């Protein structure tokens, strides 16, 4: 069920009050507004604050603690500051492309949030090609980075943008192949199916718990996915396109004020997006062990409108966001732990290590799935011990 369908449950009340319900287009736009403006943007902004606090922790200092309690309103004041800064565009910058590039990057990273299954009843768009759609929009980001770097009339931006585009584009392949192995196990690209398949046996699942523990190759796949996702988001150790010390600020040197804020926001949104997708396809989405969240039925209902999906969704979203936040914390942890890779090391890592490893992983997963008819390690162990 998509979020728009879930929200259209309100039509029950509106039909009582006004006679007719609202058209689905309204709920479609409302779902986009809720996910993007009330989740992605605030959480992306909050991540900037969180990153500074995490950095401070790792570097044994305090971090922002002035604005608001514990400095929690820091990202809010940063946003207002960036909003109010002067927007100086250099004389020779290519105006049209300069204005167009952030739209491409935002469309790529925010638009893919439609494929994230927050709960069993809430996904932006319940597409049959869910995960493929997320990958398709990820490829728009490289275009936006390249065009933004070209249009700002700056050599360092151009170098950063070219490297950035080459990096994002190269790492899409191990990313795609890691996702391919998940699809080989699950037999569907639909995000709801991918998550539902990882349910605990008592919850009606097939019994293989999380996809990452399905077979030994999947564990490697998870790490390949995570590494490739780090490179896609231009995060350390792959943050050469925005290398602070080498290329001034890389491809976003000439973007100032809110324009830079949009690029930074879309970078964090990308991190959150890849963490959400990794949680959904590898870490079991909103499933918890031993308990079936979909069986919670407190019998609450307003008239004929059953409220149990709402209550279940609240818990499911909580579990999902907890797993996402663990992954996002690991991404931030890596930023302050690992040194940056040089550009040729970066390309070598992709083409000479990750791609061959992911190829062989895909073949290994396919052979495992064929040999054991899709059963996982835990299932086989359970059958061996006679549990089921």
């Amino acid at each position, binding site marked *: 069920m*998509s979020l728009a369908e879930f929200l259209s449950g309100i039509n029950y009340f509106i039909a009582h009050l006004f006679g007719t319900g609202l058209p689905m287009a309204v709920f479609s736009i409302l779902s986009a507004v809720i996910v993007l403006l009330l989740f992605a943007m605030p959480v992306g902004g909050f991540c900037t604050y969180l990153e500074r606090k995490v950095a401070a922790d790792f570097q044994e200092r305090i971090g922002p603690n002035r604005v608001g309690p514990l400095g929690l309103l820091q990202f809010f004041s940063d946003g207002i500051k960036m909003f109010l800064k002067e927007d100086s565009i*250099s004389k020779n910058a290519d105006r049209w492309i300069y204005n167009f590039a952030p739209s491409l990057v935002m469309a790529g990273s925010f638009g893919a949030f439609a494929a994230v299954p927050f709960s069993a009843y809430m996904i932006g768009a319940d597409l049959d090609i869910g995960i493929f759609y997320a990958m398709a929009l990820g490829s728009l980001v490289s275009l936006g980075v390249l065009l933004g770097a070209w249009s700002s009339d700056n050599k360092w931006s151009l170098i950063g943008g070219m490297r950035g585009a080459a990096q994002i584009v190269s790492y899409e392949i191990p990313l795609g192949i890691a996702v391919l192995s998940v699809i080989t196990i699950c037999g569907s690209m639909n995000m709801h199916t991918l998550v539902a398949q990882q349910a605990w046996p008592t919850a009606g699942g097939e019994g293989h718990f999380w996809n990452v523990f399905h077979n030994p190759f999947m564990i490697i796949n998870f790490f390949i996915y995570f590494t490739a996702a780090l490179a896609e988001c231009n995060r350390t150790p792959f943050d050469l396109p925005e290398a602070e010390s080498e290329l001034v600020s890389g491809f976003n040197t000439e973007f100032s004020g809110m324009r830079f804020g949009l690029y930074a926001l879309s970078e964090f949104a990308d991190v959150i997006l890849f963490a959400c997708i990794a949680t959904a396809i590898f870490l079991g989405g909103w499933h918890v062990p031993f308990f079936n969240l979909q069986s919670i039925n407190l019998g609450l209902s307003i008239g004929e409108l059953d409220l149990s999906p709402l209550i279940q969704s609240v818990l499911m979203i909580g579990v999902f966001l907890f797993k996402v936040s663990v992954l996002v914390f690991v991404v931030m942890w890596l930023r302050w732990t690992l040194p940056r890779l040089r550009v040729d090391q970066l390309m070598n890592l992709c083409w000479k290590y990750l791609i061959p490893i992911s190829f062989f992983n895909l073949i290994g997963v*396919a052979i495992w799935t064929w040999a054991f008819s899709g059963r996982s390690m835990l299932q086989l162990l359970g059958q061996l011990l006679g549990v089921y």
Partner: protein
Amino acid sequence: MLQEFGNALSFVLLAAILPPLILFIGKFFRPSFPHEGKLTTYECGELPVGSAYVMFNNRFYLVAIVFLVFDVEVALLFPVLMLFREAIEIGGPAISQVFALSFAFLGVLFVGLVYEWKTGDIDWVRDAVDRREHLETLEKGSSK
């Protein structure tokens, strides 16, 4: 199903409209005092030297071409590998079809990757191959 496409489209449209909208709203709140120094491009405090549109090394282009072929491969493998579980349950010739064809597909491209590796096309700096050929030429020159 069209409804779901509409949902996805509203996400993408909203995301694409956000940057111009935010910048437009900000236009009424931002100061604007253009000054010669602010309008030149940033080159670490110096005046910019030369045009920014320099010619680039074609290693970027090589990476892009190799990426293109692998991208098409990954995109085409998606619907085929989706059938894997189903084909296993059907059994018999279906599974061997899916297996054989997708492995042939992967194998052909893997051979391509190995070729690129050996000839040094995916090296960022054409180190290994150039060094080897340079040494060979030196050897030939000195052994005369």
